[in-house]
Every structure is written in structure tokens, then in C-alpha cells.
């Protein structure tokens, strides 16, 4: 072994030890609290605290760790008193912190560069041993097929089971009973792996918390219908969407969305827009945006173009009933508009355009994402038929080396010019 690789090994081990130590998060919490977060919303502070809690709990092994894919009902993890870790969300955070290239390079040694950069980055984090190992992995067969290949590999690497929620494509006859059966077995299997019995009372409480968070999220979304737009879409696509994925079923989610709802309602009461002058309103499609440093949203803002809402925060499922917790989760799974036929997503997009009074729509086309981008042209056709300007913006959510600032700027500017 050369001196250089020895040094890199020591650094790598030190980094892993630091990131995996629960004490890191104990120390970080007061430091971050003391740092200048005055400009951020209180909800943002809750998000930061949640992340530190998640890592501390996972690293201290006080709770079992369940790795999950986005859109797998995260309530299942809270019902087991476990801590859920969503590698996509962690990868987005790493990209936001400007560290993605290091881990993408590691991930690229195992995966084709055509694979979604969030998973390539997450694999890099795994290879560097920076995440609390899972006791069990739970994912769903929708929306992202790549996720399951990734999780399947990880289950072998960590020697833990990979459980899959796999509903039928459509919502035809028998779909409810089928998914209910799947969720029931999933909970039993999770309980068996984690060495605990499924507690129905705990599941009811989790669904109650999830529903409370949903009610608050609904208030947030309603406030965002106001003109001028009270909240920037760039933040909607970062920590708000992150909490939408990670927190339902926990007290964190209730507090987060309640705080944000209060904040946004205060803004709308005084007609406080996030832009000094709002000229146009844009709906952003796809659940992600580029998280590394870029000037997409600053540029749109400079042109008076407000990203008033984003698909990522669309509440696609009906209120949950704590008295029927399993059926509520079944409905949540089956209501997912990004699962199954594209018509459901199209109807949701049209509803968002109407409710948020969007003048135009941008569909972010993330490199490697077949699920979302596969429908981009059809959605565009439907919107254009209704006279709604639409643009597909090509880019990469996590990999800054797959970013084309000049070309992106020209497209955005031409689109803004087109809106007048």
C-alpha cells in the first residue's frame, strides 16, 4: 500500500468514525442552534433538528434502523419505533453540502453512470461506511425500479433482509385487499426481523400523527395558493419535500407542518410574497431539483418568475383514519398519482395548475430518472393543448458535473421571455 492510499484510508476511517458517532450530533445540535439561523423559518430549524435526531438515533443503535425508499409508507418504520433512513434524501443533502462528487466517484465504480445520481451518491456513502447500517430494508416497487436494485445489493452487503411492497399496476378490483395483505405481511416480517410484535395501538397512534401532519401540510399548501406566492419553490423542493417523505407518522412531522402553516398564513394575511415583484407563476414538476450550487431559482426570481408550487408537495392521498390504520395506509399507497397509468399524474398536474394559478410549467428532467421523465412529453402535450406554456429542463439533481449552467440559463431566459 502506498503512503498516499494509507493517508486516504486513515482520513476515510476518521470521517466514518466521526459521522457514525452519536456524539457528533449531540455536539452539532447546540452549535447549529447557536449558528445564524435567524433568517430561516422555524420549520427549517425543526428539519435540522430532525436530521440530527435521525442520525443520532441511528448511530447510537438505541432504535432499530430501517432503510426505506421514498414513497414507501414511512409510518411503517415509526410503528416499529425504528428510525427510517431514506438514502435518496441523504444523498440530496450531501449534494446540497457540495460533497456529492467524492461519493459519486465511489458509486460510479459499482454502478453505470446512467443510473440516477442520488443512488450513485448514496452507494458512495455506503462504501465509505458513513451511514448507520440497516437492520432491515423496506422499499416499494413504485416509482423507481433502480431503487430496488440498489437496495437488493445493500441487503447482501449488510446481510439484512430486503422487504418489498409490490402493489399491482392499476387500482382495479382486488387492489385494496391485495395491498392490505401485503402491508400486513410486511409488518409481520418487519416485526419478526426486528424481534418485536406489531403493536396495533402504536400503529393507530402513528397514523393519527401522520394524519395530523397531513392536515397541517394541507394548510401549508392552501396558503401557497395565495398571490403573491408566499414561499419559494426552491425550499419547497428541499426541506419541505424532505419532511414530506421522512416525517409522516412522527411528532416531528406534526410540528414541522404546523409551524410552516402558521408562518405562511401570517405571510398571506399581509400579502407578503417571497419575490419583490411577482410577474409570472411557475409550477415545478418532478420531486427534485438540482441540490448542488446553481443559479436556477435565483435567475427565475430575478425575472419575477415565482415557483409557486411543486409536484413534490402535492397531497395525493385522502385523510387517514386512525381507527383503521392499515386501510388508511392502503389508501395512501393506492392514491399515489405517480404510480400506475400516467392519466392520474396528468389530472393531478392540471389540478395544481388550476389551484396555484400557474401561468406555466417547468418539468425538471433528471438524468437517469425514467419514471418521471418518461411522461414529460405527454404531460407537455396536454398542457400545451390548454395553452399553458411548458418546458422540459434537462439536468441532474445530485451530480454537479452533469450540470450545464450556460445552456440551462439560455433555456430559462428564453422561457421567461416567452412568458413576456
Amino acid at each position, binding site marked *: 500500500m502506498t503512503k498516499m492510499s494509507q493517508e486516504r484510508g486513515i482520513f476515510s476511517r476518521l470521517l466514518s468514525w466521526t459521522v457514525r458517532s452519536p456524539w457528533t450530533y449531540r455536539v452539532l445540535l447546540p452549535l447549529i442552534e447557536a449558528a445564524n439561523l435567524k433568517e430561516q423559518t422555524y420549520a427549517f430549524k425543526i428539519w435540522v433538528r430532525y436530521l440530527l435526531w435521525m442520525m443520532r438515533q441511528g448511530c447510537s443503535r438505541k432504535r432499530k434502523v430501517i432503510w426505506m425508499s421514498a414513497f414507501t409508507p414511512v409510518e411503517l418504520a415509526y410503528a416499529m419505533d425504528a428510525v427510517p433512513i431514506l438514502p435518496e434524501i441523504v444523498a440530496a443533502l450531501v449534494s446540497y453540502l457540495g460533497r456529492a462528487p467524492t461519493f459519486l466517484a465511489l458509486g460510479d465504480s459499482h454502478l453505470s453512470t446512467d443510473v440516477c445520481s442520488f443512488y450513485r451518491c448514496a452507494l458512495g456513502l455506503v462504501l465509505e461506511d458513513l451511514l448507520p447500517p440497516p437492520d432491515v430494508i423496506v422499499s416499494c416497487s413504485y416509482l423507481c425500479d433502480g431503487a430496488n436494485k440498489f437496495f437488493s445489493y445493500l441487503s447482501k452487503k449488510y446481510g439484512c433482509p430486503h422487504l418489498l411492497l409490490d402493489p399491482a399496476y392499476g387500482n382495479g378490483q382486488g387492489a385494496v385487499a391485495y395491498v392490505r395483505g401485503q402491508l400486513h405481511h410486511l409488518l409481520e416480517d418487519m416485526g419478526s426481523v426486528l424481534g418485536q410484535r406489531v403493536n396495533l395501538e402504536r400503529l393507530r397512534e402513528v397514523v393519527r400523527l401522520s394524519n395530523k401532519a397531513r392536515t397541517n401540510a394541507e394548510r401549508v399548501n392552501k396558503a401557497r395558493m395565495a398571490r403573491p406566492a408566499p414561499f419559494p419553490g426552491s425550499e419547497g423542493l428541499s426541506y419541505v419535500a424532505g419532511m414530506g417523505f421522512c416525517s409522516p407518522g412522527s411528532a416531528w412531522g406534526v410540528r414541522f407542518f404546523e409551524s410552516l402553516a402558521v408562518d405562511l398564513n401570517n405571510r398571506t394575511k399581509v400579502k407578503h410574497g417571497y419575490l419583490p415583484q411577482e410577474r409570472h407563476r411557475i409550477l415545478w414538476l418532478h420531486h427534485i431539483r438540482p441540490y448542488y450550487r446553481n443559479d436556477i431559482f435565483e435567475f427565475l426570481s430575478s425575472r419575477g418568475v415565482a415557483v409557486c408550487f411543486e409536484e413534490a408537495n402535492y397531497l395525493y392521498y385522502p385523510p387517514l383514519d386512525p381507527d383503521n390504520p392499515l386501510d388508511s395506509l392502503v389508501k395512501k399507497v393506492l392514491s399515489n398519482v405517480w404510480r400506475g397509468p400516467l392519466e392520474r399524474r396528468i389530472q393531478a398536474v392540471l389540478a395544481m395548475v388550476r389551484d396555484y394559478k400557474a401561468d406555466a410549467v417547468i418539468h425538471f428532467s433528471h438524468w437517469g430518472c425514467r419514471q418521471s421523465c418518461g411522461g414529460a*412529453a405527454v404531460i*407537455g402535450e396536454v398542457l*400545451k393543448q390548454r395553452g399553458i*406554456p411548458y418546458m422540459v429542463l*434537462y439536468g441532474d439533481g445530485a451530480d454537479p458535473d452533469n450540470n*450545464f449552467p*450556460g*445552456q440551462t440559463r*439560455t*433555456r430559462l*431566459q*428564453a422561457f421567461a*421571455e*416567452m412568458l413576456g
Partner: protein
Amino acid sequence: MEEKNLYAGIDVGSLSAEAVIISESTMVAYSIRKTGASPLRAAQKCLGEALEKVGASKDNIRAIVSTGYGRLRIPFADMEVTEITCHAKGAHFLFPRTRTVVDIGGQDSKVITMDEEGNVRDFVMNDRCAAGTGRFLEVMASALEADLANLGQLSLQAKKAVSISSMCTVFAESEVISLIADGYKREAIIRGVHESISRRIFRMTKRLRVKEEITFTGGVAKNQGMVKALEGLFGVKLNIPPEPQIVGALGAALIAKEKDFRVV
């Protein structure tokens, strides 16, 4: 000349820079030169040359609009507008019945649809790389040891095209060199290159609602082989401006006149 009655548009592209001067009613001069390493220097020289042709100076200009990839680097411009808006505006001025513009520039190609007043309604651009652009043709000309200006004429001499499958500029260059080594005729290879680019552009148009008339702009529109290949795919005759390379700059000058934002 003492009056302040001129408007200028400057299009600084990756390969060439163009300046167009217009008066209240007509285009009075233009200039084209290579961009080189400094977009600002290219813009200054281009504008200077165009002004010299009409015996005017910068003082005679009421407003300047910059466009093209170097548009942000022209501090003396009053406004910067994208080449998409400018090509639509310029094409509409030259051919008022234009509803679709195909522009192949140095590093990007775009298809723009517009309304009867020349306002952009939709557009698509090439994704990520320089395949299907002027730069692609330049590299192929170099690989074939042919003069870029003669590519069109050479391709028209070919009875059949040789299929070029690579669209990556670097890989296509290797493919072309291999084809030469395999003994294929240069003319047939050039025709194959034109057809390959045209197919790519035509595929882009499928994402839009293309309507006639179609105007072909940008330096590549001077290439008769490309015009023929595109006309074959579209099945209609394309409008070719007398000087296709200056349409973006012309559009910029027209916008300068429309805005007339400089207080005299």
C-alpha cells in the same frame, strides 16, 4: 452622420459574432467575424466594422441589444435577449409568414415555433452536447480535409449517402476517418454527415407543433447539402435568408428598436 437614429443588434456565438445596424425602416449594414477568445473584443470589432460601412459611430446608435452565448459579456449593450427570441424576431422580419425557425448555430441547434407576430410560442434545443451543430460540421470538414464552405456543394455531388451512426462529435470524427480509410468517397461521407444532422434536427421538431412556413437560419443554412437534407425530411421548401448568419443579430436590432429604451 449626426443623427441618433440607428439601432444595433450584436450576436456573439461560440464560433462567430455578427452585428447588424438598422435604421427606422431598414437594415443598413452588417458585419460578421470569428468570435475568437474574447466575446467582448469580437462584439466591439464587429459593431465598429458595421458602423464604418455606413459612416456612423456609436453616438448615432439609440439602443443596442446583445444576444448569443456571449450576450452577458457585452457591457455596452442596453439589454441582453436570448438567441431564441432574436431568431424568431429576425425570421419574422425577413419572412413574415414564418411559423417555425430551424437555427443551427456553432454550439447549439434549436427549433422555434412562433405566432403571426413573431412571438415565440415554444422551442426545443439540442441536449447537452454539440452533436448536430456547426461545430460538428467544422470538425467533420477538418477530418475530411475539406473546406467548410464547400461541404454543401461536395455533398450534392454524391449519388448516395454513407450512413454515419455516431452523433458524438469525437466518435463521429473517428468514424469518418475509418470510412475514408475504408475507401468511401468523401462526397458520400459528407452527404451522410448532413443527413445524420438533419435527422437529429427533424427528431427535435417532433416535440413541437411545427407549422409552415419554415425558415432556416444560422451559418449552417448556407450549406446547400444541409438545406437539401432538411427539405427532404420536412417535405417542404425552406425559407433561406440572403445572409442566414445574421438573423439573430437582426432580431436583436429589431428588439432594440421596439424597446427604444435609451433616453435621448
